[in-house]
């Protein structure tokens, strides 16, 4: 026994919007992908640079060893090898277009078999170089990384063993390679950050624009209710998914509007077809009554008139409930103070209630004003009072509490009578449902529920712990 109240979409904080989530996720995926691609690229470039350095080292060391082997030993030997080595250090492969500092970048060492220094070409003291080479075991012809004290970047060192047992070492600092890679990383980071931020902004704004259209559709759809079936959600010329959603929604609204219109036509013609003869019968009875005003003969005419009025009333109520159940009740809502309305109804019913020793108390905890059709609401409250008068034992009391809770106004009607009979408790709001002792037409509560639902509210019927009946009606407050 509850129907959801349509909340018009309010403003949502940016971090909770779908646009925000979509942009965050797409940006994350993009960033991850770009990072993985970069790691591979970095690895590849580093490998290529190393290969190039190694090829140079191997080439130079073979030239040097060739020279060393062919040059006879003596004073000349040192000079020639020294010069060749000097030349080699000038040919260091550096990145083009940039002045590279070649100092400290290449060294040449020749040792004898017992690892004693024979020749040193390079800047500064040979001791740390010799020391580092001594500590590492380098396979001949296989370039390797060697850490040398005093330098933050390692050296790539290749060894060559001459036939006379001497060892030639040629080392090149990896400083330049590292610098190239470092610059590449810096470029990547800058471009990466730029692209990620731009991508995020782009994703956020496009999805926001798209979702704003969805939001407009939601807002319009929320505004469309039964008294306003004519409006349609906005459509655009672009035939994308959102436009299709709007189109489908509009198509559905067309069908609903047609069905409601059809129902109105049917109930109108039914009402017309039945009411016109009732009016004619009533007219004849009234003429007859006026003719025999003073005589006893008027009694059957009077009761016939009363029966006819009941029939007409039953017809009205049945059609109202039928229309309301189909969500097609015709409404002309205005802003209403529910407390005032009930106060007036209490005042109208007070003598009838007092006649049956019934006490009614209204507690207005807050002012409750809603958008409602006054005629329907009057009839709804009249139904509730008629029920009370019919079903409550003498001396009972009814309390009506009116309060606002957030966006809803709550009307609680409680009595200390016998409560709803168990036979009807599960289908209280069904048409023609009535208790075994009921003298009503069984449409009262069905009509009450119909009116409540038509106004976007909910109604709940229970028995109180003390055994009385309790109705809780929630209606959305006026915006």
């Amino acid at each position, binding site marked *: 026994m509850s129907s959801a109240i349509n909340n018009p979409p309010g403003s949502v904080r940016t971090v909770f919007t779908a646009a925000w989530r979509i942009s965050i996720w797409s940006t994350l995926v993009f960033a991850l992908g770009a990072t993985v691609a970069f790691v591979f690229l970095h690895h590849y470039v580093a490998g290529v640079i190393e290969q190039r350095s190694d090829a140079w080292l191997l080439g130079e060391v073979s030239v040097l060893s060739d020279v060393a082997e062919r040059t006879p030993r003596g004073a000349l030997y040192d000079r020639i090898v020294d010069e060749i080595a000097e030349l080699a250090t000038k040919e260091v492969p550096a990145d083009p277009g940039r002045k590279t500092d070649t100092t400290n970048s290449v060294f040449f060492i020749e040792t004898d078999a017992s690892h004693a220094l024979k020749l040193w070409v390079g800047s500064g003291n040979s001791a740390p170089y010799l020391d580092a080479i001594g500590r590492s075991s380098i396979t001949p012809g296989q370039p390797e990384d060697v850490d040398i004290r005093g330098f933050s970047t390692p050296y790539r060192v290749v060894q060559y063993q001459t036939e006379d047992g001497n060892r030639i070492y040629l080392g090149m600092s990896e400083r330049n390679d590292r610098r190239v890679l470092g610059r590449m990383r810096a470029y990547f980071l800058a471009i990466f950050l730029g692209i990620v931020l731009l991508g995020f902004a782009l994703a956020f704004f496009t999805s926001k624009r798209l979702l704003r259209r969805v939001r407009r559709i939601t807002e319009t759809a929320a505004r469309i209710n039964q008294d306003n079936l004519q409006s349609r959600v906005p459509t655009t010329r672009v035939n994308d998914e959102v436009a299709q959603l709007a189109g489908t929604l509009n198509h559905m609204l067309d069908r609903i509007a047609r069905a409601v219109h059809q129902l109105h036509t049917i109930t109108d013609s039914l009402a017309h077809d039945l*009411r*016109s003869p009732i*009016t004619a019968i*009533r007219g004849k009875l009234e003429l007859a009554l006026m003719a025999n005003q003073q005589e006893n003969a008027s009694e059957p005419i*009077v009761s016939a008139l009363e029966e006819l009025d009941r029939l007409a009333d039953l017809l009205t109520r049945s*059609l109202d409930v039928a229309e309301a159940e189909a969500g097609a009740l015709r409404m002309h809502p205005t802003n209403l103070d529910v407390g005032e309305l009930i106060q007036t109804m209490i005042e109208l019913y007070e003598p009838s209630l007092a006649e049956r020793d019934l006490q009614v108390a209204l507690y207005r905890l807050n002012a409750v004003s809603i958008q409602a059709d006054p005629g329907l609401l009057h009839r709804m409250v009249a139904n509730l*009072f008629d029920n009370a008068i019919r079903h409550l034992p003498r001396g009972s009391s009814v309390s009506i509490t009116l309060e606002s809770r957030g966006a809803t106004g709550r009307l609680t009607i409680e009595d200390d009578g016998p409560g709803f009979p168990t036979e009807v408790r599960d289908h209280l709001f069904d048409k023609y449902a009535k208790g075994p002792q009921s003298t009503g037409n069984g449409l009262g509560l069905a009509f009450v529920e119909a009116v409540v639902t038509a106004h976007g509210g909910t109604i709940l019927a229970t028995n109180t712990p003390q055994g009385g009946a309790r109705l809780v009606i929630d209606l959305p407050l006026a915006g």
Partner: protein
Amino acid sequence: MRVLIIEDDPANQKFLLHSLEQNGYDAVVAATASKAEELISAQTFDGIILDLGLPDEDGLTLITRLKSAGMTAPVLILSARRSVDERVRGLETGGDDYLTKPYALPELLARLRNLLRRKDLSATEDNTVLRVQDLKLDLLRREAMRGEEVIELTTREFSLLEYLCRNAGKMVSRSMILDQVWGMRIEPETNVVDVHIYRLRNKIERRGAAPLLRTLRGMGYVLRDK
């Protein structure tokens, strides 16, 4: 007073014609919109009773056209539709009135009377004191007296008595009372109006005097003016 009845149902036609003539009106019947238009262009009517469901044209369209063509006669609309159209309510504020079928004849007569009176507002509306037999209502001081004796009434009881006095000698139905005194068009399933009348009666009737307020069973009440 010449009244045009525009109604297609023969039984209702006959009943309306008969009742209006009995109540001193000069009534003419038209069964279709075109016939009605023909009659209105040929002669002047003081009031029009219009059934909305006409065979050849929607009653509201007819009225709107006639009014824009300069017809000034007030219109009482009879509608078999249950809830009343927004446009009908619009007409109500424009000086016309409506009644849903089935209606009680006294109510129809009362509303017709009101409409015709509204047309030529006479001095009776300006009265600040209403007198019916030895009952006196001072509308400014909101005071009611029977002979020399002041009657203590609640605000609503005063309004009820005022309404009865204004219609003294004519019958008013329960739904007319609910509409005019409480401002609601409801049809209670219990006798709420009767109980209010009962209370009022206890206050205004005097032992030994002929009763002022009479019940017409199945129809309503009448406050006797003589």
